C-alpha cells in the first residue's frame, strides 16, 4: 500500500506500538466491566487505578485529580460548563485563539447569564499583556488559555497568567492537549485549576482524554449516570483506551527531551527550506512547540497547495482538523491580525517522532515542484 508521508501530527498521531501492545489484552481476554465485583471486573478496576496514577505522574498531579473523559473536547467542556454550573454567572475569559472546544462551551454560558470576553493576542500569537490586564480588571470567574496552540504551536506563559488569575480568585483552566509530550507540562508548577489532556495527540488511542482538576474546584458533571469517575463522568470506563493513554503518557514523558530535540532539528531544516521557497512563517519569533510550522506562500491558496502535496505523497493540513471543513481562513491567524488573503494561503506542517530528514527534504522538494507547476498554470491562465 502506498503510504503518504504523514506530517499532520497536530491533528492526530499514529499509535505507538508499545501503546498498542499494552492495549490489546483489554481488547481480548481482559474484557470485564470495572464496576463488576468479580475477577473480570476487579482486574479492570485495578488497571484503571494504575493508569490513573501514571497519567497523574506524567503531569505532576495526584491520581485523585485525574478524571478520564472521552477526549480533550469533553474535558474542556467539563471544566468550563462544570465549573460555571457551580457558580453565580459572571465573566468567562479566554484567549482569542482557543480551540473551538473551549470557545463554544464558553459561548454556551452566555445563554445562562454569563459574559464572555476574549483576550487578544499580538502579531506573533502570544497573549497581549495589556489585553490580559484589562480582562483581569473585570474579575473573570473562569479563564481558559491554552498552553500551546494547535495551528501555530505558540506557547503561552500560562504559569504567569495563572498566578495573576489566582490572586483575583478566579479559576484558571488550560488546554494542554498540544503541549503534552513536546514541552514539560507540570500541573503544580503551572498553578492552574484545570488541565486538559488528550491521548491521541501523544501516540495514544483516539477516544480518551483527561481533565486534571484541583480538588478545590467544584464541578457539576456533564454526563450523569452510574457514578464513575467520582460521579464527575458516568459511563462504563473504556479500559483499553485508558490503559493505552497511560502508556502513551509514560513514553511521552520518558522520550520528551530526545524527541523534542529531534523535532527541533527537523523543524529548523524545514523552515530554512520554506524560507528559501518564499514562505512567510507565522509566529517564528514566538516561543513555539518544536514540531509545528505554520506558513503561507503569498498568492497560493492553502487548500489548493495542500491538495497538490497530498497527491505528491505528503499529508499536511491547511487549518486545524476539526474546522478544516470550514472554508473560513484560520481564526488564529485572523486574531493575530494576519491579512485574510494571506491567511487563506496558510499551510500547517506538524512533525512527529517518526519523521526523518528524508521526509523533510522530500516534502520541500514536493513543495517546490507544486509551486512551480501552480505558477506555470497561473502564467498560462493569465
Amino acid at each position, binding site marked *: 500500500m502506498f503510504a503518504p508521508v504523514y506530517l499532520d501530527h497536530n491533528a492526530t498521531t499514529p499509535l505507538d506500538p508499545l501503546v*498498542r501492545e499494552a492495549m490489546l489484552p483489554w481488547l481480548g481476554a481482559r474484557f470485564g466491566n470495572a464496576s463488576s465485583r468479580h475477577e473480570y471486573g476487579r482486574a479492570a478496576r485495578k488497571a484503571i487505578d494504575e493508569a490513573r496514577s501514571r497519567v497523574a505522574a506524567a503531569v505532576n498531579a495526584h491520581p485523585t485529580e485525574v478524571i478520564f473523559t472521552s477526549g480533550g473536547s469533553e474535558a474542556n467542556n467539563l471544566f468550563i460548563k462544570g465549573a460555571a454550573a457551580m457558580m453565580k454567572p459572571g465573566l468567562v475569559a479566554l484567549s482569542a485563539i482557543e480551540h473551538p*472546544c473551549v470557545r463554544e462551551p464558553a459561548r454556551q454560558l452566555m445563554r445562562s447569564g454569563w459574559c464572555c470576553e476574549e483576550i487578544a493576542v499580538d502579531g506573533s500569537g502570544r497573549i497581549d499583556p495589556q489585553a490580559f490586564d484589562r480582562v483581569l480588571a473585570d474579575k473573570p470567574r473562569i479563564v481558559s488559555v491554552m498552553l500551546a496552540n494547535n495551528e501555530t504551536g505558540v506557547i503561552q506563559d500560562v504559569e504567569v497568567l495563572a498566578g495573576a488569575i489566582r490572586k483575583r480568585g478566579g479559576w484558571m483552566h488550560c488546554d494542554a492537549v498540544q503541549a503534552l509530550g513536546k514541552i514539560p507540562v507540570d500541573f503544580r508548577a503551572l498553578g492552574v485549576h484545570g488541565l486538559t489532556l488528550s491521548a491521541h495527540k501523544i501516540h495514544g488511542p483516539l477516544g480518551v482524554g483527561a481533565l486534571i482538576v484541583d480538588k478545590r474546584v467544584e464541578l457539576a458533571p456533564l454526563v450523569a449516570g452510574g457514578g464513575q469517575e467520582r460521579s464527575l463522568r458516568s459511563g462504563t470506563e473504556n479500559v483499553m483506551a485508558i490503559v493505552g493513554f497511560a502508556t502513551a503518557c509514560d513514553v511521552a514523558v520518558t522520550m520528551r527531551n530526545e524527541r523534542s530535540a529531534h523535532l527541533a532539528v527537523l523543524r529548523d531544516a524545514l523552515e530554512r527550506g520554506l524560507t528559501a521557497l518564499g514562505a512567510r512563517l507565522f509566529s517564528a519569533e514566538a516561543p513555539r512547540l518544536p514540531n509545528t510550522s505554520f506558513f503561507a506562500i503569498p498568492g497560493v491558496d492553502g487548500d489548493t497547495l495542500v491538495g497538490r502535496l497530498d497527491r505528491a505523497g505528503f499529508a499536511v493540513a491547511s487549518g486545524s482538523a476539526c474546522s478544516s471543513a470550514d472554508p473560513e481562513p484560520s481564526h488564529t491567524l485572523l486574531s493575530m491580525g494576519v491579512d485574510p488573503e494571506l491567511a487563506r494561503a496558510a499551510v500547517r506542517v506538524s512533525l512527529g517522532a517518526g519523521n526523518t530528514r528524508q521526509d523533510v527534504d522530500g516534502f520541500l522538494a514536493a513543495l517546490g515542484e507544486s509551486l512551480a507547476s501552480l505558477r506555470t498554470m497561473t502564467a498560462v491562465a493569465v
Partner: protein
Amino acid sequence: MLKFPIYLDYSATTPVDPRVAEKMIPYLTELFGNPASRSHSYGWTAEKAVEEAREEVAALVNADAKEIIWTSGATESNNLAIKGAAHFYSGKGKHIITLKTEHKAVLDTVRELERQGFEATYLDVQENGLLDLEVLKAAIRPDTVVVSVMFVNNEVGVIQPIAEIGELCREKGIIFHVDAAQATGKVAIDLATLKVDLMSFSAHKTYGPKGIGALYVRRKPRVRLEAQMHGGGHERGLRSGTLATHQIVGMGEAFRLARLEMAEENARVLALRDRLLAGLTTIEETFVNGDLANRVPHNLNISFAYVEGESLIMAIKDIAVSSGSACTSASLEPSYVLRALGRNDELAHSSIRFTIGRFTTVEEVDYTIDLLRRKIGKLRELSPLWDMFKEGIDLDTVQWAAH
C-alpha cells in the same frame, strides 16, 4: 476444559468478538487518521470507515445512517437524548416521565433535570417488571415533553411494550426516548415501524468495544436536540470531539454480526438459558424475577430464599455473575429494580443475575447448576431461618427480639 471463573455476566459487558477485534486492529495501526482531516488520505480513509460503520449501526435497527450520532457510550447517549430534548422542547412544557426501573444513566439524568426546574414522574412497573400502559396514560400531562422507557431491563431482562408506548407518545406529540443498550442483538428493532424518536445504543453490550455508543435521532418527523458537548461541530453539531475511528469500526462490525447472526444465536442462548432455568428451579424456594415470556433470551434473574446474599456471592466465586446491576453492585443497597418489582429486601439481596452469551457452553451451564445446588444446600444447612421454614414456621409472623 472449563475456564474459571465462568463468565455469566454478559449484561454487564461482553467480550469483544475476535472478528470485531480483527476489524479494529488496522485502525490501531496504519489507518490512524483523524476522520475530520480533510486534506489527506489518512483522514479520508478514516472518514470512510466511520461512515461504513454508521450504515451498519443503522442497518441493525432499520434506520437511515443520517439518523445515527456517535457518542462515547449509552450513558452519554441517554444524557444527550433526555437533556437535549428536554431543553430544546422546554418551551412546550417541563414534565418528563420515566420508569422506576430505568438504568441510572436515565434516572440520574432526569434527576438533574428536576434540579433545573423540570418535573418528573417515575412510574411503577407491575410485579413482572412490565409497564402497564394505563399507568403511563394516566401520568401523561399537557406539559409532558419527554417519555423515556428502556427497551430491555438490564437486571431482569424484561422487554417493555415499546411499540404501544410509541403510538401513545406520537399521538400526544411527546418525544419518546428508548434506552436500547441491552436490546441490540437480543430483540428485533425496526425503527421504520416503531414510533420512537430517540434511541440509545452501546457497543460493549453487543460484543463491541467499550467507550463507543450511538444515539438514533429521528429525521421524519424531525426531532431536535440541544447539543451537550460543544466544539468543532462534529456529528452535525450534536456531539463535538474527534471521532475514535477504531472504536466506531468495532461498533459497526459488532452490529453487523448481530444483524446477521442474532436469530441463530438467540435460539442457542435461549436453549442454554432454559437449561439453566430448569436446573436452578429444581432448588426449593427459588423465584424468578421478571416476566419470563416478555424477556430477552439470555437473562435469568433468580432469588434464592433463606440464603444470605453476600454469603452466596462468596460461595459461588467460580462463576462471574451480578447480584444487582453492575453499576450499582459496589453498594450493599438492595437492587432498586427488584424492589420496584415488589421483592422484599431479603429476596432482593439473595438474587443473582445470570446472563448468558455468545461464548457460553453447555458445560458451563451444567457446572453452574451443580455449583448453585451444592452451595445453596450448604448455606441453608447453616441457616436457622431455613430450619424454621422447614419446621413450617411462617417467618413473617415471627417477632424478632431487638439486640
